[in-house]
């Protein structure tokens, strides 16, 4: 009996992970369909309104514009930071990339303190531009561009050294970058475009702050605002389902398994390519891009320093929100890493069924947060599950549902870079799956799993659009607290709370960097 159990260990582990994935990420997809069937006629009649479809089209167009701007900024910067001899390129990259770990509406708040009517650099015209579709595309494009930059930089750094060197013998560095490195990193570019589009389409905080009408805001308004009508929210979530399905198809077609290589840092020791005469102007451009990225954070700091009443006042206003956010994010990141270890390992080793689980996790990530949010409410808001729905546990479920793909992809990337022979040798020595997983795979890929945890924790901490739909009473994370205070709280206190979020994110990233370097030491 024991022997038979051992033989099916991997299947059992995968089945467990699959059950959690289906319950957390997929059931919320299916549940609204049932709710819509039971909804009143006027809920479904909403979908017959041309205004709904125009709003969806508008959101899709705005997300496309954000993606285009992010690619325009991120592609050249990714190549510059990844492979070119820009002075201090790692420091500039860090400065440019940091804002992507923050909730975008926080940066919108920073831009408001810079370009708003009474902003540091603002006036009537800049305020008018900021509070418009142009402002939305600018803020989100600049905020999400570091995702493109970082994925492209990691992608070009991961291109096999010999492919680059063979090209360098016959072509100038810029031609090598554009004709060899960028095409070789095309899965990274495709992944970046899909991630940016999905995040832009899900975004709730920035459009609501900038008063730009978008589809997710319409769903949100029917779940908690003056237009409270949950049946209509379910109906409105429906058109977003095929959008998510399209994104999944695109991801499967253009990225898929390639993302494992995308995420790998295979060869970082090569000398950067010389920019020569272009070095000075391109370094200046990269520096400006990095300054623009951190400018809204600086604006928040300046605003917070003017009358926020000090740290004690800010902590007083924050209540338990920072703790809620950190606890939920840490618990969710642990769950995501555990599922990531099992499913990511199976995906990297092409085990049967793993690609389906991988696809499901990606589907949950690219699904607009409003769909996932209303689905989670439909699944968990019932008497029998109040232990979960009425407590911080619902935040953990929501975060895990949305961000499990982060764990799966990071672990898969790490595992796929080590030879399968190491595990096969353990199997030949009599180790069953669990023993191989915990004694061989986990120690070998501890850094990968740690990185998955860190990235998942940061994603959860920056989340607003999922949590704002179902946070429990008194259990709001800091992002939600800032978002709700932003409308009527004192400006300087809100800026101070935003800085607190920045500090917490920095602390988590710093802790991760420390652990990363510490693990690296022999």
């Amino acid at each position: 009996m024991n022997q038979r159990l051992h033989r099916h260990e991997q299947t059992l582990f995968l089945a467990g992970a699959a059950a959690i994935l289906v319950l957390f990420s997929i059931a919320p997809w299916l549940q609204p369909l049932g709710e819509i069937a039971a909804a009143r006629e006027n809920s479904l009649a909403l979908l017959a309104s041309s205004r709904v479809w125009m709003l969806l089209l508008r959101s899709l167009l705005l997300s496309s514009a954000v993606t285009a701007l992010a690619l325009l900024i991120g592609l050249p910067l990714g190549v510059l930071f990844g492979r070119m001899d820009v002075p201090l390129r790692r420091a500039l990259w860090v400065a440019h990339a940091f804002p992507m770990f923050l909730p975008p509406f926080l940066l919108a708040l920073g831009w408001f303190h810079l370009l708003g009517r009474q902003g540091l650099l603002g006036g009537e015209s800049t305020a008018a531009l900021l509070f418009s579709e142009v402002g939305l595309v600018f803020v989100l494009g600049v905020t999400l561009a570091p995702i493109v930059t970082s994925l492209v930089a990691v992608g070009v750094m991961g291109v096999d050294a010999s492919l680059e060197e063979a090209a360098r013998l016959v072509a100038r560095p810029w031609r090598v970058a554009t004709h060899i490195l960028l095409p070789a990193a095309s899965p990274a570019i495709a992944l970046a475009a899909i991630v940016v589009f999905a995040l832009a389409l899900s975004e709730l905080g920035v459009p609501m702050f900038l008063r730009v009408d978008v589809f997710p805001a319409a769903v949100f308004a029917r779940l908690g605002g003056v237009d409270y009508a949950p049946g209509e929210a379910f109906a409105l979530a429906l058109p977003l389902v095929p959008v998510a399905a399209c994104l999944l198809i695109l991801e499967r077609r253009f990225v898929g398994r390639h993302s494992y290589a995308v995420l790998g840092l295979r060869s970082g020791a090569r000398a950067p390519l010389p920019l020569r005469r272009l070095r000075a102007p391109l370094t200046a451009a990269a520096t400006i891009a990095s300054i623009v990225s951190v400018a809204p954070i600086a604006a928040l700091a300046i605003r917070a320093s003017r009358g926020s009443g000090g740290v004690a006042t800010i902590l007083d206003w924050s209540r338990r929100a920072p703790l809620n956010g950190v606890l939920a994010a840490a618990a969710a990141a642990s769950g995501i890493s555990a599922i990531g270890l099992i499913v990511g390992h199976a995906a990297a080793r092409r085990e049967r069924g793993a690609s389906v689980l991988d696809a499901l996790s990606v589907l949950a990530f690219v699904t607009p947060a409003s769909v996932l949010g209303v689905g989670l409410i439909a699944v968990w808001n019932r008497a029998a599950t109040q232990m979960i729905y009425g407590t911080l546990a619902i935040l953990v479920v929501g975060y895990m549902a949305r961000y499990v793909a982060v764990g799966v992809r990071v672990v898969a990337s790490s595992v796929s870079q080590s030879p399968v022979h190491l595990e096969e040798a353990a199997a030949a020595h009599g180790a069953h799956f669990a023993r191989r997983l915990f004694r061989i795979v986990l120690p070998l890929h501890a850094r990968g799993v740690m990185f998955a945890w860190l990235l998942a924790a940061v994603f959860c901490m920056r989340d607003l659009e999922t949590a704002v739909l179902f946070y429990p009473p008194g259990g709001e994370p800091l992002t939600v607290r800032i978002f709700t205070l932003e409308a009527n709280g004192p400006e300087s206190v809100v800026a101070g709370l935003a800085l607190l979020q920045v500090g917490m994110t920095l602390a988590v990233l710093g802790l991760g960097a420390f652990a990363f370097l510490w693990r690296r030491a022999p």
Partner: protein
Amino acid sequence: MTAAIALAEVSFRYGARDILSGFALSVAPGEVVALLGPSGSGKSTVLRLVLGFAVPARGSVHLGDEIVSKDGKTLVPPEDRHLAVVFQDLALWPHLTVHANLAFGLGPGKRRGEHEARIRELLARVGLAGKEKHYPGELSGGERQRVAIARALVMEPRAILLDEPLSNLDVSLKRDLLGTFRELFKERKSTVVYVTHDLREAASLGDRIAVIEHGEVVQQGTLDLLRAQPASGFIRGLVQDLSWTGRPGT
């Protein structure tokens, strides 16, 4: 006569380890030199120094009359050295067709017709006519090797450097390709540095064999010289192995 390639008093460190120290080697125009040595002896480093992907801490690298790097400085970047390389993993660009792999280094220009003719002629010469539109992933191992050598030759470089290009092939395919390489180098009077750890390959291809151990050339000459007066235990071992298995194939 000026050497096509020369390394003079070259020192190179990797971290705390001296890879080359006072290393010297010269290759005459049209000569095929096989660089033979055990793993970690520094032979691939020599190639990278000549190609310009590594810079000597001390000493100089010369291509013809030109000093291309000296005392920690790159004077001529890799793309201006007019060299070609065939790496161990071949480094064929997977997103480019066979034709595009060959055309990449030729670039666009007025001489497009001439370039096309050269590509066609070379592909036919290595037995790959009709495979122009194939991607590297669609070719067999032997065909990929032929694309790699054609890509190196199409540039009409001043020298070709090969870094153990045949190490992963079976014996009969290796023999076949060695024959092709030899013919191509001979008819084009190519200057070649061929890095290997296999004496059979070195003897089959090289006009001269230079043996590197611990970052210095311990002996150079023909196979007969190495047989008659092996200068180290490593060379003696290789020669004995060769005696066991017969003369190198032709």
